[in-house]
């Protein structure tokens, strides 16, 4: 028995999304995750140097599309982000995921087949320091064809060239991306919550979860939905932060969630004297490609925890 890796990876990346722009690396996940994070869960270090390669393009309607390799998968990520909120749909497909080649079919949504081409005048290798790991970045262009239409055409791409990069680890470095104060703030937020509420619904391999964590001065709302369609996996995530929006009564028998956009509506938790719980209301979330996605209903099991 073990924990989920894919959705945890996406959620972990969202937790530190505020620092995403700083490193200028392609792809949300590669930007945010320490290269060895997944191996640190308890297993040996990779035998070969990992690489990440890909590119980012603007797709209009405030969507950013990132296509990159992650392990054996080619990932196409459609992201909409503002200061306190983020929503992304991440499409995982198997294909050719090598440093110089991205090739995969995303079900009936589209496909990518692109090759990395270094610039004529090489501007050299640039490096950045992230989580104590030095990453070398080789800039260039991806040429080929990307054809992608999101569900109900919420995003549409047809391009033949994009600027991108190949990123490889290049040893350790001293500067850490987060300061000690930032790390302490994150740890305090995660491990000294005032309350948290988890609601989840599962059917087969399809899982929907809502996680709200309330600290002294703010609340973080995270929603995720995981599904597979043959050889395509889709992970949708949404995150918002707000100062209020999470009310709990003193007896811890009821709670009310009204998170800001991309969420809509209100979710109501109620615990009966016999221990039964209910999670009702009209709370939904706007995932890219899945608008007004319901986050309440009888299929959900809810858990409210308020530390004494």
């Amino acid at each position, binding site marked *: 028995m*073990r924990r989920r890796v894919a959705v945890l990876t996406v959620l972990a990346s969202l937790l530190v999304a505020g620092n995403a722009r700083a490193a200028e690396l392609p792809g949300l996940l590669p930007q945010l995750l320490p290269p060895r994070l997944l191996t640190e869960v*308890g297993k040996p270090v990779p035998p070969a140097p990992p690489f990440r390669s890909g590119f980012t393009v603007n797709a209009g309607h405030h969507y950013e599309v990132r296509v990159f390799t992650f392990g054996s998968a080619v990932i196409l990520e459609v992201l909409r982000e503002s200061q306190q909120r983020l929503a992304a749909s991440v499409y*995982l497909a198997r294909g050719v995921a090598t440093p110089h080649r991205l090739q995969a079919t995303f079900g009936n949504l589209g496909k990518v087949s692109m090759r990395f081409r270094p610039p004529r005048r090489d501007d050299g290798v640039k490096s950045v320091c992230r989580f104590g790991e030095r990453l070398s970045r080789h800039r260039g262009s991806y040429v080929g064809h990307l054809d992608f239409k999101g569900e109900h055409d919420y995003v549409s791409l047809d391009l033949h060239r994009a600027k991108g990069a190949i990123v490889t680890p290049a040893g350790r470095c001293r500067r850490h991306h987060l300061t000690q104060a930032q790390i302490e703030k994150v740890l305090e937020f995660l491990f000294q919550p005032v309350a948290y509420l988890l609601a989840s619904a599962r059917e087969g391999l399809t899982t929907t979860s809502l996680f709200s964590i309330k600290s002294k001065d703010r609340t973080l709302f995270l929603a995720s939905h995981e599904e*597979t369609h043959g050889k395509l996996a889709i992970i949708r995530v949404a995150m918002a932060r707000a100062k209020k929006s999470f009310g709990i009564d003193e007896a811890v028998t009821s709670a009310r969630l009204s998170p800001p956009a991309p969420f809509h509506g209100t979710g109501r938790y109620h615990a009966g004297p016999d221990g039964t719980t209910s999670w009702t209301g009209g709370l939904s979330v706007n995932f890219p490609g899945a608008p007004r996605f319901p986050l309440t209903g009888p299929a959900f099991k809810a858990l409210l925890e308020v530390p004494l």
Partner: protein
Amino acid sequence: MAPLLLILVLCAVPSGAVASGVRVPATSAREAGRFWSATRIREAKPLEATAPATIVARPGDGERGAPHRVAGVAARRADFGADFEQVADPTAPGFRIHGAVFVSLGIFGYGRCSGTAVHSGNQSVVFTAGHCVNSGGRRGRWEKNEWTFVPAYRYGQRPFGVFPARWLDTTRQWRVSGSENFDVGAAVVGRNQRGETLEEAVGGAGIAWNLKPRQTFDVHGYPAEEPFDGETQRICPATPFIGHDPDSFLFPGPLNLAVTCEVNGGASGGGWIIEGETLNSVTNYGYFDDTSPDFGAYFGNEVARLYGRAVRVK
């Protein structure tokens, strides 16, 4: 018929399959039977695939070759009724090929898994999960101390005796990368206390690789965590393929298989049988927060090579 079958089997095994794996110090069935006392069996904790190790792309890992099947010599089991039931008589044909695996972990106590006897020329091959024979990755540890297969195990009973391992191996990719998409292991076992080979005692399932994932499986195993106790064989009969785990996309190798079956720790390595007699996957892992999907490795070329190495062990 049997020699012809064996020739077909050996011809079908992909070329390049060479003897590797690890030889296990010779232990007699009598010694193994004495070692695995009821107390030690009770103390045995499920071996787990703790986490995937490597996210490194390897072109061609997902390649699928031509489908192939090796027929079994076990009689077909009787039809089974309800879902997720305890097997009433694990000594019955079709069930006796499945058993519990016990292994000593030295100062860390004892571990347990499940396994399935598979037909082979040496009549002694057991298939299980890779993490039941090697902890995976380049620093993986061979679980070779007192590795013993007990077919049809039930409440301390060993109706067909115990079969100590002589040789263990796993897929090359499980050893190199620890990718769960290759979490398959095999053992060649010695004779039981009566001097019988494994196949003489219980028979052996057939095995097939490179089939389409969309199969209907009978999932066998010995789950040992609450609400189970690992003392009886369990089965999720006729459970269809429901898809691939999203995690599986990130790791090298063919996408794994998911079925609905609430097995838990101890069921690792339990056989997934198709058409009543053919092994086509083994249980690898489930999730803490949702125990209903059970995940098993796809049997592709790497498994064919592993089988090829196992059948060559004298």
